């Protein structure tokens, strides 16, 4: 008897036993023999499943489980990369006194709240436009995707220079048509909107997955809706949106996680706008202007690698992890509710 047959037979036997209907050869001795074989088969099956899962499990343990546990452990220590000292809740208490951490968190949440919805909406809008193009779709697809391929540092440096009111061409052009232009990366009120604009410019990643999702919506649903007299908005609202909602959820969740990790663009924009050189050995104030571009990951990096407070940096990492998890849960729940509501 093969393992699978034994498992099937044992399963049948167990189900009969549970139903209490006995069966041929169903004495106590025979039942014991069957269940022993069944247990062995089950164990073998589990091992097989485990073997197939093991590459992922090992990766998960190494790159998530261990780092997470280590981060929790180090968060209770004073750790300067060389020496370790247990300090209890000191790092956690310091979090509540650290104005810079909360300031950085507010900046990051602003970027999450504004940039993520805007990028998803903008990406979806472009995807919708591209699906309706009769000609030149491939060209426009490339045009909208290309900015995403520009390295973030180069893109940010270029953005700051282009939008610089003193030397940039945008100000010059705006002047010609009499449009007032804000001082994008030199005023605390405008620096984050400037970064959001940069995010919108490089929306290619979101656009491309939403375009694939929109193109994947079954055509017959639209045809049926048209026959029923549904207008464009109704087709979008009741067919496109529910069908692509898992992809929207993916775009939103990954967008939130990426924005919570927002580092490069904010740091480069702050430094370039401040005219600070990144010469080795120089000390620079992060978050120019006025701390408005100081994001949470920048502060985490600053604490860990400039101030050598690795233990406290671990607390900040855990806070970031918690916030990311919270956002992810809420978003998944909202999208699930939306999809279920549409289905019913």
């Amino acid at each position, binding site marked *: 008897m093969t393992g699978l047959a034994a498992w099937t037979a044992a399963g049948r036997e167990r189900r009969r036993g549970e139903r209490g209907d006995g069966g041929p050869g169903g004495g106590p001795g025979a039942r014991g023999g069957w269940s022993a074989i069944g247990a062995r088969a089950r164990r073998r099956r589990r091992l097989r499943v485990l073997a197939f899962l093991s590459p992922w499990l090992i990766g998960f343990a190494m790159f*998530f489980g261990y*780092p997470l546990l280590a981060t929790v452990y180090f968060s209770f220590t004073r750790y300067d990369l060389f020496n370790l000292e247990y300090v209890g809740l000191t790092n956690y208490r*310091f979090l509540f006194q650290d104005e810079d951490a909360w300031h950085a968190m507010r900046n990051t949440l602003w970027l999450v709240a504004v940039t993520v919805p805007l990028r998803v909406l903008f990406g979806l809008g472009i995807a919708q436009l591209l699906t309706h193009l009769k000609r030149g779709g491939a060209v426009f697809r490339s045009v909208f995707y290309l900015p995403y391929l520009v390295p973030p540092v180069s893109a940010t440096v270029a953005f700051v220079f282009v939008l610089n009111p003193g030397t940039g061409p945008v100000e010059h052009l705006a002047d010609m048509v009499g449009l007032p232009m804000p*001082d994008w990366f030199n005023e605390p009120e405008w620096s984050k909107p400037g970064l959001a604009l940069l995010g919108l410019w490089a929306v290619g990643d979101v656009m491309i997955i939403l375009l694939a999702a929109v193109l994947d919506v079954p055509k017959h649903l639209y045809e049926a809706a048209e026959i029923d007299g549904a207008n464009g908005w109704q087709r979008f609202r009741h067919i496109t949106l529910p069908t692509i909602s898992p992809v929207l959820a993916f775009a939103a969740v990954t967008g939130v996680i990426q924005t919570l990790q927002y580092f490069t663009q904010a740091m480069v924009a702050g430094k370039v706008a401040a005219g600070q050189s990144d010469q080795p*050995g120089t*000390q620079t104030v992060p978050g120019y202007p006025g701390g408005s571009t100081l994001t949470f990951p920048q502060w985490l990096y600053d604490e860990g690698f*400039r101030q050598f407070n690795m233990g406290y940096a671990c607390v900040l990492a855990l806070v970031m992890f918690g916030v990311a998890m919270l956002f992810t849960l809420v978003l998944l729940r909202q999208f699930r509710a939306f999809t279920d509501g549409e289905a019913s």
Partner: protein
Amino acid sequence: MRTTTPRRIAAAIAAAALGLTSACTAGGGGSDDGGPKAEDKQTIQVWHGWSADHEVKGFEDAVNGFRKLHPNITVKVTGNQTDDQITNAIRGGTPPDVVASFTTDNLGQFCQSGAWQELTPRLKKSGVDLNIFPKAVQDYTQFRGKRCALPLLADAYGLYFNKKLMKGNAPPKTMSELAALAKKLTVRDRDGRIKVAGFMPSVQYYEHTPQHIATSFGVKWLGADGKANFSRDPAFTEYLKWEKDLLDWYGYDEAKRFMRTMGQEFEASNPFQKGKVAMAVDGEWRTKFIEKEAPGLDYGTAPPPVSDARAAQYGGGFTLGTIMGIPRGSKHADAAWEFVRYLTTDTGSLVTLANALGNVPSTLQALSSPDLRLPAQFGTFLNVFKHPGTTTSPSSPNGGDYLVQLQKFVQDEWEPGKAQDPARALKALDEKVDKALKLAGG
């Protein structure tokens, strides 16, 4: 009401894991190893941060003297190495034998953590007299009595002035004179926009950081107790008032507009090199930049002005520099020490390196070497460097965070006028800095 399933929680955890830094998970460090004696045949690894071709060549030229002197030691040099790379190598147990860092502010951490070896026993054994280095240099290579580095060239700061824009005026010696002359030399257009700034006092003007300018007021950065001294030392308030008075004379918004259009510090568009500012405090390296990027510029240099009450101290300034040491876990520590000792104390080697890099040689003897081939304006920096009144900023265990915090305060609160009461603001700053120092074990 919908409940959250374990599967969804697991999905959320996996997704959020992307955001979790792995920075906190690295392993331990290496162990010290006596290794072979300096006389044995061996190879040592040397890491430094210079990367430009002329810098790398200059370093190699300086090392060649050591190679001749110690033919048994093969020196392998690797440039363009950062502090992060050095730290990772030490923690990984495979450090080089000698390291050099530009980030003098990190010395406190290097010494406190033991990442760089204590050099005092070796200095005593080799009979090296620390007085070959100026006092300020002795200060920035030790942390709380633990000397884990020696200086390898230094930066000194002075006042650069554009002779044409000075209109026959002599360089100022006091901060009052500087402010008065800055106003006199400033040129505005008909709309009141600055065309030429006499002297831009803002901390956002490149090297005009509190670290470089407040020194002129004789500030004491940390108290004897190792705590922040901003509210206890009246020199900080004096500096803040001087800075704000001159900045307000320009107009904060107009000064900001001017600084946005003035060019980049380390490019040919540098405002001093372009004649947009008449006077600026800068490091000695600017002479090399001017030589290369603005050879026609007619300029002079002078010691930085000092506050009126410290007129007798005129001639001194601020200094800081590259540090060199032996990392924990070096496999050839004796040979590494011979190398460090040679490169940081040998006059010929220091002069070779100073000529190549345009920095100040870091021993008193090398300062007066006839072999120094540097522009005439460089003499000011040699004099500032050896002046007994020249000071530095002390190391702290958290990478000189107190300097960053002061600059942040001046830039974000003081200059825009958000902080009106300096006494109260500096007290709050002291508390903030002290909390951070305490967290770092300071």
